[in-house]
């Protein structure tokens, strides 16, 4: 399983033709205390770069974009019930949704961990 990153601070764990998507630890540090999460509906067909989810701190709402095109297979209801999980475990338990990959070539433009580290340095 490989983990890839977007310039918009989402991470994707790729497992066969399914990706799990969350926001990075860097992103949660920048956003601060998360108090609300809105996740996409299961079955929704997301296009790459479309607003897919929303995370809100006390101060502001931020969109989470679909990093690739695909169908929503599963969402993490635990994180909508406990938004602060994003602050404590952004790249683990606080995953947001899973997508079935429509076009594997879309993964080619994404960053690996080293490139993402440079991106946020």
């Amino acid at each position, binding site marked *: 399983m490989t983990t890839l990153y977007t310039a918009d601070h989402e991470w994707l764990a790729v497992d066969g033709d399914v990706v799990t998507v969350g926001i990075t630890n860097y992103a949660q540090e920048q956003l601060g205390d998360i108090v609300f999460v809105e996740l996409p509906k299961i079955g929704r067909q997301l296009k790459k770069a479309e607003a897919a989810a929303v995370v809100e701190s*006390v101060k502001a709402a931020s969109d989470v974009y679909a990093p690739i095109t695909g169908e929503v297979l599963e969402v993490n209801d635990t994180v909508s019930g406990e938004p602060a999980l994003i602050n404590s475990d952004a790249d683990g338990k606080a995953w947001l949704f899973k997508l079935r990959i429509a076009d594997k070539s879309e993964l080619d433009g994404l960053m690996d961990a080293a490139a993402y580290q440079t991106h946020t340095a």
Partner: protein
Amino acid sequence: MLARDAAPTPLKQTPLHPLHLARGGKMVPFAGYDMPVQYPAGVLKEHLHTRTSAGLFDVSHMGQLALRPKSGKVEDAAHALERLVPQDVVAVTAGRQRYAQFTNEDGGILDDLMVANFGDHLFLVVNAACKAEDEALLRAQLSDACIIEPLADRALVALQGPKAVAVLAKHCADAATMRFMDAGPRKVMGLDCFVSRSGYTGEDGFEISVPAADAEGFANALLADDAVALIGLGARDSLRLEAGLCLYGHDIDPTTTPVEADLVWSIQKSRRNGGARAGGFPGADKILAQIENGTSRKRVGLKPEGRAPVRDGAQLFADASSSEPLGSVTSGSFGPSISAPIAMGYLPTPHAAIGGTVFAEVRGQRLPLRVSNLPFVPHSYKR
């Protein structure tokens, strides 16, 4: 997903700027100043700390002005200031302060402010974003009667929360005997300060004007107390919203009158129709008529029924499908003390009754909100 700030014009710094950096403040541009939105503890913890202990806020970006009567009589300065505000300033006795608004000819609010009577002059605290215009207004309208003196060499801090009084009493002889809205010069840590028992959080607490050169040592001495933590602008906003207090430029502005903003309580009888000094301030005809006849719209508290915060600018509708907005949200956030989203906004008076339901449009959905009493968290002032 993270917004990037545009290249800023050079930002001003308060005398406590080095302290913010040293204490890990996350700095953002605010009203032309480089200010801390939060410290490492974060907005939620800072908010809750203020409600349970004592929070220290740097509000030095706000404008501090002395209004000195040319006659030497403070009541002459008070009479002069009454030309610009609908409040009874003459009745503010030495050692007391009052909340006021500068109004325009349409009855709209140019700024809101605190006015204190220091015995031989008036002391004003105005909003950072308005201070240049306020000073110009005062010079243009009151120079016949007053010398207008901006106090640029002073910092301003707020110490807020249930433990604020115990903390300040260690450094200021009569802090504990002051009542809500008492204000005047006091020695604090031996420094020449101006202290008022007031604030912008709904909690008991103090605002303290300190000579700029002494401000950092002063703040560090307060922070040496275990009860005290630094609080950024993020928690300042969530605290004042829970307390139902207006933010200038959002909940009140030149297009909202004090009556529409539900601030009639701040306009004393002496300035209303039939009062000893009725009218005589900009927009008096409109404001006084609104007090008697009511307004077509009103500022209200709003509680979203779901968990999603409804933010400033969201349009409000009568039902889930109507196309004509009734009004909009002017402040909206998450209230850490009640662990629920809260908001304020303007609604037509027929829709403004407590308990009614309206709908806000958020990301293409209509979310229900209940019209609610303000404040969301009861005030704890020492009256």
